[in-house]
């Protein structure tokens, strides 16, 4: 048994994080839940998310004390039912109306009207993201106090959309600035007890560390675009395709580096009073985690392709063209099941590789300074976490 900080002693200013979880135990937990996930066509995801969070939180020791997740999967499930009962019919009606409107009054606007439900989904997803963070934070207990997220999901969603448009116009060069202001909004509305958070990472740091990656990914693509502007049509279409391939390949290759940079920067920006933190984990370690994920996914993809080929070219031709209704139904059910099996395997593999590795990297390399700031934190009087962020929490749990 080890508690780094002797009980009762005045707390030194510097403290560290430690992750006590083991990959085997975590994987056991995930694979047990995976079966239930398939059997319930994904409805079990609330319980899986709960298990995953409880495991990660409770095995995370920061300055000698564990984090604790107190969420209840049943709450999220109920939130999800509320969403279905209220939102889905509204949505179905909205979609049908958009379609009818497009068909009857404005065929020319068909594309836009048809897309409007998708845009509405994007907005809802942003709202849900903030609400889900609210739920996670207010169900995180540390040293007997809860975190809390205030602020408005609407404001955050609109800020995100605004910055998204700006980033699009500047080809991503303003991303660090956008990230900074969005993080600041979140952190300034985050509380540990009554201790208010803040975000103080300069955008320039992220800009400098990301510029090389930006040049690697966008440089050649832009050069090809410039080249295609002065050439014939046949060459231009070839160039466009080459640029798209380069964007995809290079983007995928540098993504882990970008992910690591942004995460280190974000953690270094977090403040609670005088409390600050750093997690200088190595980018290479995150690459290893991503490689493990791909190493799992490649044989799986080959397996999926092989099975679907056999089904398509060997099994389907053997079936009579006019299937009896029962068999046709069975085929539909099997297809849906296959979809969920694939989804579950990919999710579990991601959780067991990238998510776990990332969590471990960050926690094990976490160094906190100014920890004494926590001693002054008090619970916010008259506040109960029990009804916050349930519905949003339920919506964005898709990938838990």
């Amino acid at each position, binding site marked *: 048994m080890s508690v780094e900080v002797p009980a009762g002693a005045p707390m030194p200013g510097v403290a560290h994080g430690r992750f006590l979880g083991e990959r085997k135990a975590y994987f056991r937990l995930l694979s047990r839940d995976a079966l239930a996930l398939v059997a319930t066509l994904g409805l079990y995801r609330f319980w899986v998310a709960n298990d995953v969070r409880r495991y990660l939180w409770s095995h995370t020791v920061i300055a000698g*004390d*564990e984090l604790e997740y107190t969420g209840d999967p049943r709450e999220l499930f109920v939130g999800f039912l509320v969403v279905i009962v209220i939102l*889905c019919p509204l949505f179905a009606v909205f979609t049908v109306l958009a379609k009818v409107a497009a068909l*009857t009054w404005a065929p020319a606007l068909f594309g836009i009207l048809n897309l409007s439900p*998708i845009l509405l989904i994007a907005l809802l997803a942003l709202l849900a993201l903030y609400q889900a963070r609210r739920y996670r934070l207010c169900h995180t207990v540390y040293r*007997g106090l809860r975190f809390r997220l205030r602020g408005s999901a609407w404001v955050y969603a609109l800020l995100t959309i605004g910055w998204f448009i700006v980033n699009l116009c500047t080809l991503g060069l303003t991303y660090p600035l956008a990230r900074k202001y969005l993080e600041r909004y979140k952190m300034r509305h985050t509380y540990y007890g009554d201790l208010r958070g803040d975000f103080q990472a300069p955008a320039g740091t992220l800009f400098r560390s990301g510029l090389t990656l930006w040049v690697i990914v966008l440089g050649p693509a832009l050069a090809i675009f410039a080249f295609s502007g002065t050439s014939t049509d046949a060459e231009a279409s070839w160039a466009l395709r080459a640029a798209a391939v380069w964007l995809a390949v290079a983007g995928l290759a540098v993504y882990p580096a970008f992910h690591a940079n942004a995460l280190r920067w974000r953690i270094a920006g977090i403040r609670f009073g005088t409390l600050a933190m750093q997690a200088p984990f190595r980018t290479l370690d995150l690459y290893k985690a991503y490689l493990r994920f791909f190493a799992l996914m490649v044989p799986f993809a080959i397996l999926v392709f092989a099975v679907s080929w056999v089904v398509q070219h060997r099994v389907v031709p053997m079936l009579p063209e006019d299937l009896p209704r029962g068999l046709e139904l069975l085929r539909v059910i099997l297809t849906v099941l296959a979809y969920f099996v694939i989804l579950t395997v990919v999710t579990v593999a991601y959780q067991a590789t990238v998510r776990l590795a990332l969590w471990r990297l960050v926690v094990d390399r976490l160094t906190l300074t100014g920890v004494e700031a926590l001693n002054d934190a008090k619970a916010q009087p008259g506040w109960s976490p029990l009804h916050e962020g349930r519905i949003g929490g339920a919506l964005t749990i898709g990938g838990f």
Partner: protein
Amino acid sequence: MTAPTGGTGIFFDGVTAARHAVTVTLEADALSIAAPDGAALARWPYAHVQRLPAAEHRLRLGLTDRGASARLAIPDQAFGAAVEERLGVPDAEIDKREQRRRHRVVEWTAAAVVALLFLGIVGMPSLAELLLPLMPASVEQTFGDTINQYRRAAFKGPGPFACGVNKGETEGQAAFLKLMGKLEVAAALPVKLHPVVVRDLYTINAFATAGGYVYLLYGLIDFAENPEELAAVLAHELGHVAHRDSMRSFLHEAGLSFIVSAVLGDVFGTSVFALSPVNEVLSARHTRTEEAAADHYATELLRKMGQDPHAVAIYFEQMLRRGSLGSTALLADHPTNQERLDAILATPPAEVTSGPVLTPEEWTALKQICAVPRGTGDVGGQGPARK
């Protein structure tokens, strides 16, 4: 060695984040927590204390009341074991209870999924049936008009979309309209029909969409041996118009997308529905029941016209025999089986009381409606019958 009844702990009172080094005493019915100077801080009855998730060999306790966030950590393993023993409920028991609860969750959700599937298969068609009378005819008409525009716009040629408009095709068009006129009069539908022969020389197919639009692809005319066969197929399509099948499948599909979103837990299903092109949504394949109803309608219509009500079945049978070179689009859109043919043949036969629906001259003219000399087919269209 007896289990210790007292030891040290780290206590968080849930009011501040301060760490309190405390002494913990195991009393008869409660844990008592006191500061080193002896001042009592808290007294937790065993019945209200629960073990919290933690790594192996770390014991953390809290109260069963979810709102309370006071926590007690016991660093000493031997004392921790004594505390756990005193709490009474061994871990295995808690695990088993949790396991049972989980199993119930899985069972209930699996049942819910089955119920939703049932709703999708049985409930949605009946819901569509319920909503169908509420859709005004004017909406259906506008739907049909718009789809017609899309169809015409999507036609690549060569030549105009409709046959019977070029020079040399007008006689065929007159014959076609005469045939359709006979059918329309007998059918006496509430909507006006907009029949058209589509300049698709190879696809053997015919379909009807909302608003009385009836599309006859030339491939079918080319394939038919006599005008009665053609009349039978068109009578079947009028059945779809009379039963508003196009509208029904639109409503049906909207409902299904709702079910999919419910199961997947997002609005994915709805978005798929929203993105599918108009044609797909509105000319979706009809269900078996709808096909059977259209068959029945066709037999009645032919009977009313004084024609052989079994002509539909005979034509399909011929298609099956002659079309064994591959499945034709007509067969793909109208899955034919013995059951269906039997149902048509089971209707009472009737004397053929009226003459042929078209004169031999008119029939020849109809065959020329797309101005194709017999035997040559190199004019365009979509190539041999699509799958």
